[in-house]
Structure formats: structure tokens, C-alpha cells
């Protein structure tokens, strides 16, 4: 992120303008642009055409890992150090449901966070930024070589950007 690629950065006040610009950019064949927004927005996501985030796989696998870890840990440890109470079975599954359940949640949550971090880092792109994007503006950064900048600038301006600037 420290070396931003050259390109064009636009700030939009209106979300429908930004969505329109995203559609036009896609028609022109651009795929590697970055859209900033202060809140998550379905229209923007639909215009870009994201597939469902793979984070859900992390949650599922983490939860299953936690579940098996919880049961296996409790079962193995109670066999390894038997606490004999009233002739009852030493590894008893029913009370271990609590352990299995809690670890499902714990490992599932930790895996979700790990997945979130991993995928955000993987999909990170060098892009210019403006502090308005966390406040009330939608931003679009299009990385492009100098010769194509005019066309992109034109496109963003006509779709209604409040400000368009070229980032070296």
C-alpha cells in the first residue's frame, strides 16, 4: 500500500452516480479499480459483481474443528486421568456437549476473524485514498497508465463525480 499505483481518483457525493460509474468502468473493461464507501452498500457490491465472501468457509471449518476439538479433548483427558464417580462411565458424552459447544463458538469465531484478515490482506490493492471516504463520499480509484487517464477522467466526470484528480 505504501507505493500507490498511478491512476485517477474520484469522489462522489451521490451513490447512484458512483454505481453508474462502476458499471461504465466495467463496460470499458476495467476490473482492478477500488471503490470506497463509508458504509457497506449492496448497490455498489452488485455493480462490481462480487462473489460471496469466502469467509464463511473459515467459519464453518473453524466451528467444526472446535466441536471435534472440544469432544476429543474432554474424552481423551478423562480417559488419561480417570475420575471415578459412583461407577458412572468415565468418558461420558452428555456433559461434554457443553465443552464441545463452547469450543465450536470459540474456534469458529477465531477462524472467522482469521479468515477476515487473510482475505482482506489477499485482496489488498495499491490505491490512492481520501479521508472523505470514511465520512460521506463514495470514492473510486482507477489505476491506469498515463495515456488512458484522460478517458477515465472524462468518464468519471460525466457520471457525476464531485471531484476527479489524477494521482501520480
Amino acid at each position, binding site marked *: 500500500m505504501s507505493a500507490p499505483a498511478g491512476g485517477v481518483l474520484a469522489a462522489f457525493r451521490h*451513490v447512484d452516480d458512483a454505481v453508474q460509474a462502476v458499471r461504465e468502468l466495467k463496460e470499458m473493461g476495467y476490473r482492478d479499480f477500488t471503490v470506497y464507501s463509508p458504509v457497506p452498500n449492496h448497490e455498489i457490491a452488485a455493480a462490481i459483481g462480487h462473489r460471496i465472501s469466502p469467509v464463511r468457509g473459515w467459519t464453518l471449518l473453524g466451528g467444526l474443528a472446535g466441536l471435534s476439538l472440544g469432544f476429543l479433548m474432554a474424552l481423551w483427558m478423562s480417559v488419561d486421568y480417570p475420575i471415578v464417580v459412583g461407577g458412572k462411565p468415565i468418558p461420558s458424552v452428555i456433559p461434554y456437549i457443553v465443552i464441545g459447544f*463452547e469450543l465450536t463458538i470459540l474456534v469458529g469465531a477465531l477462524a472467522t476473524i482469521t479468515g477476515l484478515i487473510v482475505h*482482506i490482506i489477499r485482496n489488498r490493492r495499491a490505491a490512492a485514498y481520501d479521508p472523505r471516504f470514511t465520512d460521506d463520499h463514495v470514492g473510486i480509484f482507477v489505476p491506469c497508465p498515463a495515456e488512458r487517464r484522460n478517458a477515465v477522467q472524462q468518464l468519471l466526470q460525466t457520471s457525476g463525480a464531485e471531484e476527479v484528480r489524477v494521482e501520480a
Partner: protein
Amino acid sequence: MATTVHPDPAPAHHAHPTYHEVTRDIAATLGTPKRGYYVLLAFVLTVLAAGAFALLWQIRYGLGVAGYVPPVMWGVYITTFVFWVGIAHSGTLISAILYLFRSAWRTSVYRTAEAMTVFAVMTAGLFPLIHVGRLWYAYWLIPYPNQRGLWVNFKSPLVWDVFAVSTYFTVSTLFLIVGLVPDVAAIRDKAIGWRKKLYRITALGWRGTDQQWRHYTKAYLYLAALATPLVLSVHSVVSWDFAMSIVPGWHATIFAPYFVAGAIYSGVAMVITLIVPLRKVFQLERYINVIHFENLAKLLLLTGSIVGYAYLMEYFVAWYSGNPFERASFWNRAFGEYWWATWTMLLCNGVLPLFLWFPKVRRSIPALFVLSLFVNLGMWFERFVIIVVSLSFEYEPYAMGHYTPSWVDWTILAGSFAWFFMWFLLFAKNFPTVSITEVKEIIPMPRRKGARA
């Protein structure tokens, strides 16, 4: 706070604040505090110091200073543990369960509730350790490989509790932090000076890119989906600490739902207790208004009614069981040595919330504030009644005893409130207590071609 002020193309036709106003107003809560804040913080720290002194005293002279009298070996500490775990619950209810229900009103109050959850669990977690006496062996609770080949007893509800409470603490902290990241980024982009540096680090590089939101929204959803069953399980597990034993007054199958309802009830009361002054001090009347209080009051009424029902049902079950010990235990609750604790609990939790049936009370912020204090008091006494009063009146009359908390108990209890409020005060001054991002989410994004229906 240097920002470019853009002329607003659509002047306010509606009551919604603009996105920019949301950022500005909530960021303003992080400005330099007035003297009252430091006075309050100093008071809280003094009480905390007294609590720490009492704890050191107990460590030096042993658990004997804590007023335990056989057979009452679970006293104020366990009562306070259950109280604080209970407080935590409504935070997760508001932040996770209402999130899954897509309930829009939660956005203004959920951050406060969630921070309250984390700090309440941090407070609760201290008490089992204080209660076991030898704090320095606290790690024995965790199954770790050791030379003697010992493992913990997984059939014990106390071990379940260790797993439940530590999972709850971890997950609710993660949930709070994940929710904070986009907000901290919004403040980073406004802040100056040393705070800019602080928020640059704590925003973790958040910029609100499409890829970040794509993964973030899903991760948040799954965290909420994991936190929802978790919150129901934690207080159930806490209730099984009691229900799994055969003490009359404890050994009841209604304990899990009874405790969960009570937990959410006390937590909603604590949210009201916190939000009323917070809103005043930070001038957030525009974001937290009567609708939010009314909804909280309805939650209070719902959970309070469940709790009231459970109180009646407990007595019915004791009578209907025909078990003489069970019947004696409940007779003792109402008319024995601790009658005052029981009637405080019944009055505060069962009777006073009935006023919430009146819409006027639900919409009166001062009335709700006063009521919430009574509910907090009543819920502490509920746990005292369940724990201490039941233990003091077990089977054999020659083995019964009367427990009176000592000054150490009371001081550590006061210290726990100070510990909780210290964290909350520090949080409220350094991080947004109302979510910037989620408040914006319920306001339609500005459009050129008018709003879609």
C-alpha cells in the same frame, strides 16, 4: 478537526442527520472532557483502590476475612460474579440478536451495550478467582499438561463455566473490536495530533474499500450468528453451577431459562443506567431518543415479566413437588432470616416493572433511569437470595448457619463497580460510544435521482 465543509445539495427535508453530521457529532464526543469527568474518574479510582486494598488484605490473611460461615461457602463473591455475567448478556442480545433480526433501532445503543458486555465480563471473571482465595493458582482451572498428569473434571459445571465465560469474553471482545474498526477509521480521518497516531494504529488500515466491506459484512454476520447461541449458553451454564447440585432451592430445571431472562433483564437495566447520563453529557439527543428508550423499556418489561413468572413458578414447583426440604427452603426465603432480601428482590424485579405497562412511564427518561437502578439492585439481591439463602437453609437444622458479609466482601463489591465504571469512562472518552458506521447505515445514502422506495 479540520474538514472541508461541502455545501449540502439537498437541505434537510427530513429529520435524518446527514452522514457528515453523524461523523461530526459522534466524533465530538471524543473532545476534551470537562472537569466533571476527571472528578468522576478520580472518585471511581479511589473506590477501586479501596477494593484493591480489601483484596490484598484477603490475600494476606486468607479467606477467613470474607465472612463465610459454614454451610454458606458461596457468598457475596459468587453473587457478584453471577450479577456481572448477567449484566453482560443484554449487550450481546442488543448487538448480536437484534442484528440478526435487522432491528434498526439498535444501531444507536448497541456500541454502549457491547462495551458494557466486555467490561462486565472482565469484572465477573475476577470473582471466581477472588472466591477461590489462592489467586496464584488460578491457572489450575485450565487443562494444561502437567507433571502429575492431572486433568480437570469435565463433568463439573464449574469447569463448563470456565469454558463458557472465557469463550464469552473472547468472542464479545472480538465482536466489539470488529465493530469498532470502521468507526475508528472515520475518526482517524478527522483527528489531529497524538490521537491521529492512536487511531491510525487502531484502525488497522481500514479504508472502506469494496473488498474490505465484502469480507467484513459476512464476517460480522457470522460473528453475530455465533454470539447468539453463545449468549444463551453462558448464563445457562452459570445456572447449572447451581441447578446441577442437590441444594433445595437450586435443583430446578427452570434454572437455565430463568437465569437467561434475568440476565437480559438486568443487562437492559444497566444499559439504561449508562445511556441516560451518556446521552446528556455527550449531547446525543439526536441519535438516542425516546424511541430507543421505549424499545429498551419494552425489552425490560418482557424479560421482567418472564422473571416475575419464574419467581411465581419457583414457589409453585416447590409446593407442588411435595418435597419437604424444598418447601421449607422456599418458606425460609419469604419469611426466614433473610426475608428482607427476598422482598427487595420481589419488589424491585417483580412489582416495580409492572409500571412499564403504562406508555407514559416507558417514554419518561427520568422514570426509566430510576427504575433501572431499582432493577439493578433487585437483580443483585435475586442472586443473593438464590445463592446465600438457599445454602444457609439446607437439609439438617444443626448444620444451618447465618451468613453476614464482612467489610472485605462489601469493599470488593464496591471495587467491582469502580472497576467496571473505570473501563467504561476510559472507553467513552477514547472510542465512539455510538457507532458511526451503523448509524449511517440506517440513513439512506444520498442519491441524485431521489430516494428509491
